[in-house]
């Protein structure tokens, strides 16, 4: 990777102008559009209708739809399977793959399958520890970490080889993403860790939910100082608060999530959903003004119904259609 960098000084420019997957998300980002992605949590059960219902609510209000991979280690319908349902409905999924449940064999196999099924966007995550989920006795795999997973998938795509070195005929063409938490510790290491993810292959970044915009802006300053916002598209995570209880829960129970007291106080005063939506809109407004923020990622956990009005009131409608052709050029 280092060699590549020194050999081609303009690699950065080339990187961003070339299409890796031709996905809607990739094209819009590379055209410089401010993108909106929305999260869709698959059901705890085999109900295809639940995926369809949520997808129909979100349709037209985001450019791509992230499907979680057993988030917080709770068993749910698989991300790839839900992604197929979305594709069949004409929506573009971003599938997620965590290192928690599969070793390098399972990861690569599932990703080859996902590519064959038409998935183009992939978010590579380490995954939550099983301790937090509904099967706390599960053996955690973590054969790879997210950074290593990124490098494996990048090599599959760009060098047509598996982690073992075995050549493959047809490569999976994914637009690769990673997550980063600007609020976790050690704070000074967070931008450096992002640099490692980008070096490993991440082209878009989804951040942890932002409530503390000031702290997020500080992190973005470090990100810009390292030029990382030019090497990857950063999508800031947002989640509207449904209630005071949820705000408190987020503050006290979700590791690595920061909810400032001021927001708790506002939720206390009004105790309403509308206040939560207003706060979220204000956050989106501030985030859009930060240099290097390429879009937002809305995680309305089990509250998909709120997404349409959120996107509309944030003046992010209509969602654009990409103008460049969808044929990958790499």
């Amino acid at each position: 990777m280092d060699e590549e960098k020194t050999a081609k000084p303009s690699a950065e420019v080339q990187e961003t102008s070339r299409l890796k997957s031709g996905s809607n998300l990739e094209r819009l980002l590379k055209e410089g559009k401010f993108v909106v992605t929305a999260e869709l949590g698959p059901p705890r059960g085999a109900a295809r209708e639940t995926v369809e219902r949520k997808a129909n609510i979100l349709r037209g209000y985001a450019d791509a739809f992230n499907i979680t991979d057993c988030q917080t280690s709770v068993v749910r319908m698989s991300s790839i399977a839900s992604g197929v349902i979305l594709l069949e409905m004409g929506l573009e999924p971003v599938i997620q793959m965590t290192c928690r449940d599969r070793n390098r064999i399972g990861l690569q196999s599932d990703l080859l399958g996902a590519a064959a099924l038409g998935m183009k966007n992939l978010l590579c995550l380490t995954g939550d520890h099983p301790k937090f989920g509904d099967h706390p006795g599960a053996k955690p795999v973590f054969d790879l970490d997210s950074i290593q997973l990124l490098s494996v998938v990048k090599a599959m795509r760009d060098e047509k080889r598996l982690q073992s070195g075995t050549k493959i005929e047809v490569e999976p063409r994914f637009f690769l993403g990673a997550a980063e938490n600007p609020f976790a510790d050690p704070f000074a290491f967070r931008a450096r860790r992002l640099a490692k993810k980008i070096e490993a292959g991440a082209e878009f970044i989804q951040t942890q939910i932002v409530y503390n915009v000031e702290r997020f802006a500080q992190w973005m300053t470090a990100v810009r100082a390292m030029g990382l916002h030019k090497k990857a598209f950063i999508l800031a995570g947002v989640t509207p608060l449904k209630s005071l209880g949820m705000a408190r829960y987020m503050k006290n129970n979700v590791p690595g999530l920061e909810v400032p007291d001021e927001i708790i106080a506002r939720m206390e005063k009004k105790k309403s959903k509308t206040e939560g939506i207003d706060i979220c809109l204000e956050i989106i407004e501030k985030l859009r003004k930060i240099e290097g923020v390429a879009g937002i990622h809305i995680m309305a956990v089990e509250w998909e119904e709120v997404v349409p009005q959120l996107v509309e009131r944030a003046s992010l409608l209509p969602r654009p259609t990409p103008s460049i052709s969808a044929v990958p050029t790499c």
Partner: protein
Amino acid sequence: MIVARPKSFEDIKRYVGNRKKVAIVGCGGCVTVRPVGGQKQVQELAALLRLWAKKEALTRGSQPLTIEEETILRQCEPEFINSLEGRFKDCEAIISLACGVGVQCLADKFPELEVFPGVDAVFMGATIEPGLYWERCVGCGNCIIGETGGLCPVSRCAKSLLNGPCGGSLGGHCEVSPETPCVWQLIYERMEQRGNLGALDRIMPIKDWSVRPGRLVLEHLRVEKKES
């Protein structure tokens, strides 16, 4: 050292069941240092079982219980295990208070007897302060701590992450348990102290986990053996 904790008395009672004679074998190694399986614990467990057998005489079908007590220097060494040759003749079962390594050596020596583990080996760790032990190594067979400031993320990070802390590292603690220090925070601080934070920017390669079942032959010993 290998750190172990006693199995519950319920488990031990289940092992003994209606048997008339069992042996309890302690180990003078790690389990004596972290005292759960030494001579003293053998005596204590035997005393408890005798009391229980007396109290439960009826439910045990009026069987008296005889217990043979023994502690050898180390259950993981054939030399000491072999010293038990000819013992436990009329015992129906053995309860070993050694780690799983010792239990297996004992079971190999007495294949006709049922051998039960009396303790659960939980990890390889260090004494932090008297009575407090913390895991330090999982014997992954491919030691990388030369690159992580002498701190092991394989055994001390809940996700064995090799490329820095996950998003749950907060205030120096691990998201999995607030009493557990985040080893990546410690690695970061140590590297910062050494003025070598740049070392953490390198992407750690994918690890070779193909070490199990593990076997190590000390080559110099093998050579000596051949020569003699």
